[in-house]
């Protein structure tokens, strides 16, 4: 058990900077998710913790020990890979046993430990199979079992669920969450899927272009986005963002204005509001007016997209709600549910 500390790490390949001066303290037993679009540097950050990449600059600590110069095998971490990284020529049993073998754990303990790990992920009946005889979900479990068979200091998981189908992903997500709770091992988890991040994480680090854009518990990331990037990335469908001016406690959009308590005056500002905080109403009653562009039923709710001047807004409504395309509608919302961002810096104001 240990914390993981990154101190000002940078990874550069020639001109390309993958990770830029990143510092992060991951607490002991914490489940931390690195979330971001592809190419944001999240996987590179994890690979530097694993020792699969050497940081160009900066220091990596596991517990109190600086591990920059340690080989991956000496860092006592376990990793689950996106494509599982199973050994195709070995049976499931041998796959799970491999870490014990190379780490010279006494042979007499092997079968007991493998059995325990396999039981935890419900694989005990498949130990004699080869990886190619398993389904995607089963392979995923083998990778997990191989990670937990010895008790590592840190778990690293690189998009472990991204190759599974949607249904299995939900099941495995719950299992992962339960497993981490049971084993109480510090976990770093890389994903581009915000639902995974929200459901699994103690804290989420949202990454963008090699830096951490925002770090906090999932509810904070959702309810209190620090900047335009996080606001636009988190939420499905994402937050509605409209450009306008901020003047005398008033946000002015080409098509409407709303009074907002904010002393700043800005020529270029963005107003953000989540789809579930918008309410459709009769055309003349709303804060703003628009015409319906599309109407979709997602199952548990409906999504209505409307055109408002240059912008397109998405509104979440009850599942019984019905409306026709091209109908004129009004939209109501509360100023207190709005977020304001400076266009210049991208930061919340």
């Amino acid at each position, binding site marked *: 058990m240990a914390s993981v500390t990154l101190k000002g790490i940078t990874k550069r390949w020639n001109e390309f900077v993958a990770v830029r001066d990143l510092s992060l303290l991951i607490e002991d037993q914490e489940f931390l998710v690195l979330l971001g679009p592809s190419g944001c540097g999240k996987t590179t950050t994890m690979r530097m913790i694993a*020792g699969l990449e050497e940081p160009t600059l900066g220091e990596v600590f596991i517990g109190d020990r600086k591990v920059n110069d340690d*080989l991956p095998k000496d860092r006592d971490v376990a990793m689950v*890979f996106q494509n599982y990284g199973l*050994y195709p020529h070995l049976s499931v049993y041998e796959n799970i046993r491999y870490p014990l073998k*190379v780490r010279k754990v006494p042979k007499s303990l092997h079968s007991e430990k493998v059995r325990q790990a396999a039981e935890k992920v419900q694989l005990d009946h498949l130990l004699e199979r080869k990886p190619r005889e398993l389904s995607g979900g089963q392979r995923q479990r083998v990778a997990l079992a*191989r990670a937990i068979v010895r008790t590592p200091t840190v778990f690293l998981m690189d998009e472990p669920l991204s190759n599974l189908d949607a249904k299995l992903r939900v099941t495995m997500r719950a299992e992962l969450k339960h497993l981490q709770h049971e084993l109480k091992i510090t976990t770093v988890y890389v994903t581009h899927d915000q639902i995974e991040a929200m459901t699994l994480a103690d804290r989420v680090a949202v990454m963008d272009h090699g830096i951490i854009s925002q770090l906090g518990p999932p509810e904070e990331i959702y309810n209190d986005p620090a900047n335009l990037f996080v606001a636009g990335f988190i939420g499905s469908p994402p937050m509605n963002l409209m450009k306008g001016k901020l003047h005398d406690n008033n946000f002015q959009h080409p098509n409407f204005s709303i009074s907002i308590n904010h002393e700043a005056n800005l020529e270029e500002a963005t107003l953000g509001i989540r789809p579930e905080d918008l309410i459709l109403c009769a055309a003349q009653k709303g804060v703003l007016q628009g015409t319906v562009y599309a109407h979709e039923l997602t199952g548990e709710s409906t999504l209505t997209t409307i055109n408002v001047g240059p912008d397109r807004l998405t509104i979440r409504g009850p599942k019984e709600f019905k409306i026709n395309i091209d109908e004129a509608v009004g939209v109501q919302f509360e100023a207190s549910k709005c977020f304001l961002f400076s266009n210049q810096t991208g930061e919340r104001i």
Partner: protein
Amino acid sequence: MGNSIRKQVADLFQFALILCAAVVILVPIYWIASGAFKQQVDVFQLKLLFTPTLANFNEIFRSPYNLHEKLLNSTLVAGTTVIVAIPMATMAAYSFSRFRLRFERTMFLMILSTQFVPAVVIVLPYFLLFRDLGLLDTRLALVLVNLSLILPFAIWMIKGFIDGIPLDTEEAALVDGSSRLQVIWNIVLPMALPGILTAAIFCFILAWNEFLFAVIITNSKAVTMPVGLSLFHAEEGVLWHLISAAGILIMLPMFGLAMIIQKHFVQGMTLGAVR
């Protein structure tokens, strides 16, 4: 209706063309093979029916032809070349496949470009060198020159196979606690083994069929099978029935080996270009 008849005619036409191609491929091979079982008089007649004999195979192994010596030379030379080349090639291929090296491109291109140097160009200095060292007409000399032919090929082929092994698996082994050497021994080699064997077989075929080096560097003791083919002369002319018998011994083993690796045969020859 008209369409379906047209399609049937087209299909029949294609079938006929393919059959033609198959016949063109097989007939010369058959003719060589059948010659091996003919008596000398039958060779000079275009008969399809003849009384088969195994006498030719008896004769080629006797004096003055002593083909078993050539067979041994060919096997030893090709075998040694492959045994020396494959481990070296595997190591180099692994490095080229997995690491960023200084001058990587330059080194790689250099190694590959040697593949295209005409053998007749480099054989001159070899001939002079071996003459000075007293190595002319030895198997050792042949192994050395064959290595220059085989090694670049083997590197490219094996690199292609290692490139196909997912990096994930190796990294998983590194994190699981293996050193790099353990990863190579426990993970990469078992996974790349079919590819490495393919390369080995392929290189064996190349070395076995190699002719130019052998014809120049050897003249009696170290003569290989392909060179041995030109030994079957007698006062009455060329001994085609014996050439055919020797020909079977040259081609049949290679056919067998080629069949084992048929899936990868093309890939190997194009130096991985057509993937």
